[in-house]
């Protein structure tokens, strides 16, 4: 296999040892490529020195204590039949509170919907938590987006890697912002997989990334 300066970047991306070997062969006669390869190697050679190691004799004890305390925490109480003897005493007051809450919530929903939106639709669209089945469906939709985005990213990557024109640089920056938003949303979703709002936002960001990549490819072709 023969290689020249144009193959350097592809070789540095990894995954093709034969190409890297060919580029190394080429670099023996090309100072620019030799310098690039050598600097790349110096970074890799220095990287293991960034590994940190220090004694923290108290850390496991603290973690153990925290986990032990966590294991002692009572599980959420299981629902048991209502203690009627106790509940009856509070029934009139509870009924008044419940009536007030229902009336207030109804008024709030009616006002926010401008009096036009049916109540059933309102709860369907504003539901704060997803069911297990809905989460599976949303995750399937996310996978579809990811598959599409991966394909587009592979096409766009070579164009963006050496981007110098302002429009390509803008696209690159926008994609970086979207990637950061995706990481942030995923981190939040890891805390609560059933949060509808976060899931919708993540899908919206995926959609935006897909559109951005499509527009980028159109831009490159035109």
């Amino acid at each position: 296999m023969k290689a020249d300066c144009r193959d350097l970047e592809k070789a540095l991306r990894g995954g093709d040892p034969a190409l890297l070997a060919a580029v190394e062969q080429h670099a023996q006669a090309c100072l620019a490529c030799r310098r690039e390869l050598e600097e790349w190697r110096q970074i890799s050679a220095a990287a293991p020195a960034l590994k940190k190691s220090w004694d923290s004799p108290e850390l496991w004890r603290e973690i153990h204590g925290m986990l032990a305390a966590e294991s002692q925490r009572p599980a959420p109480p299981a629902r048991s039949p209502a203690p009627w003897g106790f509940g009856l005493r509070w029934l009139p007051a509870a009924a008044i509170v419940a009536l007030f809450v229902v009336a207030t919530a109804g008024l709030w929903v009616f006002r926010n919907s401008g009096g036009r939106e049916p109540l059933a639709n309102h709860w369907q669209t504003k539901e704060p938590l997803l069911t297990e089945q809905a989460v599976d469906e949303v995750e399937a939709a996310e996978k579809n987006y990811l598959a599409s985005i991966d394909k587009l990213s592979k096409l766009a990557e070579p164009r963006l890697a050496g981007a110098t024109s302002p429009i390509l640089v803008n696209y690159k920056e926008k994609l970086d912002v979207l990637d950061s938003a995706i990481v942030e949303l995923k981190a939040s979703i890891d805390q609560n997989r059933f949060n509808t709002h976060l899931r919708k936002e993540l899908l919206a960001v995926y959609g935006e990334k897909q559109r951005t990549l499509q527009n980028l490819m159109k831009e490159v072709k035109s």
Partner: protein
Amino acid sequence: MESGAVLSRTLTKKEFALSGTEVRTAETEFLEGCRAGSLPTFERLYQAHGGPMKSIALNLLGNVADAEDAVQEAFLKVYRGARRFRGGSSFSTWLYRILVNTCYDLLRKRRRRAEGPLPADVALISGRESDHPLRLSIEVALRRLDFRERTVFLLCEVEGFSHREAAEVLDVNENTSRTLLFRAKKQLQRSLSSAGAFAPVEVS
């Protein structure tokens, strides 16, 4: 590097596992023990992965106190979430994913060390290996990288994760992991080159 390389190496040190099959067995034992809330299993998990977790957290967060807080918080999240773990990735990479997300959350909340001078702890605690003249320059330049690029660099180049493992930690595919590492190294090269940090390359 082969898939499971870090896992295998870490466990070998602790005499837990040697071959791929044994790694999988250890993984299953970790998963089952953690799901059952077994504290001895958590202790073995800490012995096997505590070192790399602390190292990654310190390189991401910049000081020992925050790094230890992040490791502690990650273990608590694993304890609480092990029963819900669905097995989409290996249990160990899930552990590192929780750690990286915890570090990201801490950085986002504190909004302090993204730019500016190198925090003292990172600079002072040298590597386990013998020190390298480029170490400080890389540590300074790393702080200017995007979080994902920095994380992939730390996982693959510093801690020796394979791209498959790093991809599982970041919930991306292997190609994306390769691309992130390429971008990270390219930016580091630019920064180090403009700072004149590299050893000169022989002309002849």
